[in-house]
């Protein structure tokens, strides 16, 4: 057991140490550069609408007219912005009670059955690709709405329904984590006072976990807001503000999806699509910001 080994190649480990440091740092630098270039490229493209093509901010955000082929062309994105917001908000409204109830079921009511059956169900729902959701929405939900309500069935209601199922796993899993992380003493205190389970949940558990539950809902809404194909397949794609939830309309993502391939890079209409993408991106920042704010509240 001589010390010969370490004398042979005394500096090998230093090279090795640097290899590791440099390799992992490069990976992280690449990641950071990617994000910055994403923001940079989408922003320059999106802003060129205002600077190069001279379209006013008021037109994009204020006009309800979308006539790219008109004389002169009008690019009012308001219908899409309204479409995106109403669809994702409605989806969150449908999904939040469902997801929170699922979490309550798994943590508070029947943990064993919940973990064995509901948990895998939620995970599977998360794994189903969005085009499949779109396909099912188109073949089941749209015809159903068409039969039951006046209109073609396509529209905000169909989009929100599809999205609400897609974002259910996000809301559920975050709610589950929040409920599971509650200190046991909290509930016991309430039960000790003779409260029923529902009173305990309603008065103690839900208010305490509210910021965390909201985090899940906002994350779900963010996902709904950015979802493209599933929404595009069931929303109808008419470029105006609909009269009802069952009339064809568009969202930011659906317009981009449909038109990006049919317009030429550098033209005015194409640039406007990049502006819409920029709006999507800015909304992502807003959602991340809100989530962070809620998380800070939740951790207090």
């Amino acid at each position: 057991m001589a010390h010969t080994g370490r004398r042979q190649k005394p500096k090998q480990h230093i090279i090795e140490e640097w290899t590791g440091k440099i390799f992992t740092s490069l990976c992280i630098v690449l990641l950071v550069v990617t994000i910055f270039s994403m923001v940079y490229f989408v922003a320059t493209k999106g802003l060129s609408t205002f600077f190069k093509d001279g379209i006013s901010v008021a037109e994009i955000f204020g006009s309800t007219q979308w006539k790219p082929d008109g004389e002169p062309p009008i690019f009012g994105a308001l219908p899409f912005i309204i479409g995106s917001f109403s669809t994702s908000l409605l989806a969150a409204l449908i999904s939040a009670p469902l997801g929170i109830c699922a979490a309550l079921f798994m943590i508070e009511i029947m943990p064993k059955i919940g973990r064995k059956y509901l948990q895998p169900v939620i995970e599977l729902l998360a794994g189903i690709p969005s085009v499949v959701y779109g396909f099912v929405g188109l073949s089941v939900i749209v015809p159903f709405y068409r039969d039951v309500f006046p209109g073609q069935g396509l529209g905000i209601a169909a989009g929100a329904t599809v999205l609400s199922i897609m974002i259910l796993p996000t809301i559920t899993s975050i709610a589950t984590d929040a409920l599971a992380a509650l200190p046991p003493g909290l509930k016991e205190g309430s039960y000790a006072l003779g409260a029923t389970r529902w009173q305990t949940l309603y008065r103690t558990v839900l208010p305490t976990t509210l910021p965390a539950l909201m985090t899940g809902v906002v994350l779900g809404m963010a996902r709904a807001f950015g979802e493209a194909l599933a929404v595009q397949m069931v929303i109808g794609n008419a470029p105006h503000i609909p009269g009802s939830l069952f009339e064809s309309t568009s969202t930011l993502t659906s317009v981009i999806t449909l038109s990006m391939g049919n317009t030429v890079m550098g033209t005015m209409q194409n640039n406007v699509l990049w502006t819409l993408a920029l709006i999507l991106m800015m909304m992502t920042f807003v959602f991340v910001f809100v989530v962070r704010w809620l998380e800070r509240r939740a951790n207090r």
Partner: protein
Amino acid sequence: MSNIELSVKDLSVYYGEKQAVKNVSLDFESKQVTALIGPSGCGKSTFLRSLNRMNDLISGAKITGEIWIGDENINDPKTDVVLLRQRIGMVWQRPNPFHKSIYENIAFGPRYHGIKDRKKLDQIVEESLTKAALWDETKDRLHRSALSLSGGQQQRLCIARSIAVSPSIILMDEPASALDPVSSSKIEELIAELKKEYCIIIVTHNMHQAARVSQKTAFFLMGEVVEFDDTDKIFTNPKEKRTDDYISGRFG
């Protein structure tokens, strides 16, 4: 001629604002067991972890002072910790064998340090296990998982693992406190055997153990060394009243 293996001068360790070790100076001799005793939170473990720069892993820890091993200051930022740690073995409170076979647990270190020859490795494994009094129990199952061993065996494996890279100093952080009495006394026997070759520094809560295995004892209190002397003197005739109080069980 002095036999000083490791010499600590004016060592202080800070965790953020809190000073966990205060200006400690101690000399450790080779072929001797030095016990560090004191109530929990007195800084003895922190002190031990400074000796092989394990505190580097804790963010916010700051260490000042000098730790000399030969003519090298361990605490110098320029010191190559990887080479340093080959010369200082460490054993923890809870056995922490790698999730590998018994053989691999021992051979892993030497192989990394450049010994590729299979025969040579076999020899190191056998020698290390023999020294750790584990060879007879494991020689027929060297390629089984190390996790299949009992707690006491695992701890002896960890000792074998650390001596396989031929250190001159072995640091032990309460090596027997997580074990049953029988395994614990085996570890003590082993320490008595190992001291013939190594400089051993052992942190222990167990006063009897300190008295049994060590030649020198340092009593830590609130981050300071209250008294450092021959173990016999510390336990029979301490100079400081605080040492006496602690040893006779009046606090701690």
